[in-house]
């Protein structure tokens, strides 16, 4: 089973989700991310979902979990690149993504992570 690659960018980790997510893949990502955050002492995690044409309740919860787990490990998370149709669907689905910070694109996401890291 392929795993989603995690790239190191300075003090942040970058995850670009480009494939269709299923349960096993999502759990593997959570595990891998937790390990890498600790390994690299990352201050922040940027998850790029600009390639995702669909986010269901499971994916939403997974993103929420990643944000919570990262915070416990002292890293902030920002999810970027949500497509408009995905956002509209999530609103109607009624999924609350409270606790998950979002930004429009990678550039803005990194800016947010820098701000957050600076404040600590």
């Amino acid at each position, binding site marked *: 089973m392929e795993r989603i690659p995690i790239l190191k960018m300075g003090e942040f980790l970058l995850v670009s989700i480009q494939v*269709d997510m*299923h*349960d*096993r893949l999502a759990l593997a990502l959570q595990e891998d991310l937790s390990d890498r955050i600790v390994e690299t002492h990352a201050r922040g995690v940027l998850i790029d979902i600009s390639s995702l*044409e*669909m*986010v*269901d*309740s*499971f994916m939403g*919860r997974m993103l929420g979990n990643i944000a919570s787990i990262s915070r416990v490990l002292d890293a902030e998370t920002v999810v970027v690149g949500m497509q408009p*149709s*995905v956002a*509209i*669907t999530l609103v*109607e*689905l*009624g*999924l609350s993504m409270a606790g998950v910070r979002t930004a429009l694109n990678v550039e803005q996401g990194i800016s947010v992570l820098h701000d957050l890291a600076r404040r600590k």
Partner: protein
Amino acid sequence: MARTPEWLELRAPEDVVPLRRAVRRWAVELGFGLVDQTKIVTAASELGRNAVLHGGGGRALLEALQEGGLRGLRLTVTDQGPGIADVELAMRDGYTTVGGLGLGLGGARRLVSEFEIESTPGKGTRVTITRWSA
């Protein structure tokens, strides 16, 4: 615009992926706008996962409908699992089964035009959703 109904097996979590792709393909062919497509694909994903995780596996059936000038996509997901004892409760948002995560049924219902569910404890569950193109 006759299209033969398509069956898909849902045995393992990975099987949700081909289901999503098939629903997307059908929705595109039926001329659904991007948002409508995404809604039905998302609803399909919720139902598919339920069948695998809570229903012990099942099947999905895709059909194209035509009524007046409207085109519709119907998805029926069935499983022979333990069934849902209290459907009302299950449809409530945030409902959690033991050891599992919320069923997402309530959410799926909001995304489609028609929603039907039949469930008998001990026998299984069948959920039928239909989305009409605007």
